[in-house]
């Protein structure tokens, strides 16, 4: 991942065209923006976009992924460049690691356990001690990834309840729902989780790893990048839970930022802009990294997480999932 390139967030419906070596973004109000192709790391589409083949081949040529979120914030797919950085030694080792069930389960367990610890950190609460204890026990007993996911589900239900106590009634989740999210809180979480996942997909594309050979999530669904789903887990609380808590405390979000219908909710146009701004600010927040001896942004932490798996594959360095240390 390079410092010179950026993620561009398109929150309004637009057309994406090619103009020489730039992308021309045409907005509904007839304003146009030109972005030099070499400035772009990836694009995140929060709304409808119309991309033609000239733009597409330019994106492809520059190895740029376009992430597409649907109306409800669910990750609905990506335009992924054909070219990748994969390398045979890394792929061989990645596929050996992920098909060895013992190693696979060990990593799946630590992903779930660390994610739970990160939820507790993000919610800054002692109300989840019991659920965590139960999770630890259930993880020890779990003998396949389905049981691990089940244990995780139990912990998550408790954690969403605790989060609800920190939110105003209109923003509460009342149970996690997707496709479509049933209320504002769920819509918010869907958007943020999809963006976290998209960041991980982009990070993985800068490594020789294959995004679909993973440890925890089922790899039966071909649309899923299992490894990206796995590695996004420990980061979700850092973004979803924390931003939601903060937005509630500071009253940044309003009812009008959402379009709620019976049993379904999504962000309004203004809400999309607001939420993408909240996420971008969060991604660029920096912390001091003790072994790199420099500040790293949250976005870079996602990239470093992907590199840990490269190290696991190349050098057998044990993988310890991300935990906030600050």
């Amino acid at each position: 991942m390079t410092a010179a390139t950026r993620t561009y967030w398109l929150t309004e419906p637009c057309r994406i065209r090619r103009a020489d070596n730039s992308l021309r973004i045409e907005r509904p109000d007839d304003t146009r923006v030109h972005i030099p192709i070499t400035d772009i790391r990836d694009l995140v589409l929060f709304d409808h976009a119309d991309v033609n083949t000239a733009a597409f081949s330019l994106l492809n040529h520059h190895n740029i992924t376009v992430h597409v979120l649907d109306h409800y914030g669910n990750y609905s797919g990506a335009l992924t460049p054909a070219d990748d950085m994969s390398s045979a030694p890394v792929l061989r080792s990645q596929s050996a690691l992920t098909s060895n069930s013992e190693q696979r389960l060990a990593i799946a367990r630590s992903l779930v356990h660390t994610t739970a610890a990160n939820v507790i950190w993000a919610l800054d609460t002692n109300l989840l001690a019991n659920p965590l204890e139960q999770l630890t026990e259930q993880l020890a007993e779990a003998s396949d990834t389905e049981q691990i996911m089940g244990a995780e589900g139990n912990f998550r239900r408790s954690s969403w309840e605790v989060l609800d106590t920190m939110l105003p009634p209109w923003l509460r989740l009342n149970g996690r729902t997707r496709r479509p999210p049933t209320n504002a809180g769920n819509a918010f979480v869907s958007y943020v989780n999809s963006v976290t996942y998209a960041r991980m997909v982009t990070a993985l594309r800068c490594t020789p790893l294959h995004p679909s050979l993973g440890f925890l999530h089922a790899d039966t669904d071909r649309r899923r990048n299992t490894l990206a789903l796995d590695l996004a887990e420990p980061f979700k609380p850092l973004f979803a839970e924390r931003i939601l808590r903060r937005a509630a405390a500071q009253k940044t979000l309003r009812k009008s930022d959402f379009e709620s219908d019976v049993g379904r909710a999504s962000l309004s146009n203004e809400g999309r802009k607001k939420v993408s701004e909240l996420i971008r600010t969060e991604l660029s927040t920096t912390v001091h990294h003790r072994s790199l001896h420099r500040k790293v942004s949250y976005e870079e932490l996602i990239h470093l997480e992907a590199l840990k798996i490269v190290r696991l594959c190349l050098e057998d360095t044990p993988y310890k999932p991300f935990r906030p240390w600050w």
Partner: protein
Amino acid sequence: MTEESDTGLGGVHIKYLLHCPRQLWLYSRGYRPEQRSDTVAFGEALDETTYTRRRTIDLGEAKIDWVTTGAVVHETKSSRTPTPQHEAQVRHYCLLLSRLGVNVARGTIHYPLIRRTVEVPWGDEARAHAEETERQAHEVIGSHQPPPRLPRKQCRGCSYRDYCWGEL
């Protein structure tokens, strides 16, 4: 053996070997952090504009800047400091060319930023030196374990830093 060592070693391999064997090991396994850093971009711009009469010779992995009559191997560097790595790289090119039957005279490294050139002699001694370097590179690449990290001060500017030092 990796794909790269099947097709021989390029200048990059030699450069990495001398900078840090671990870097060579990682590179040879196909992990190549994106190199679109400013220094690299600048190096390319320099290549395109400084010398116009040139023939790039492509030996697969190794691309030689240009070879003039009398078989002098030229290499242009955007850095301001001549280093032993640069010389080793040029000797490696001389070795590759001489294996193709070219009667190599010597090498010249150009440093346009400081308006200097460095001559790299070619002969039996230089050839032995180049062969030894090549052997070391093959040894590093063939090893199952990665070489250890350098003392971190020497990692400055290396594009593998996030990889090598990014774990807490």
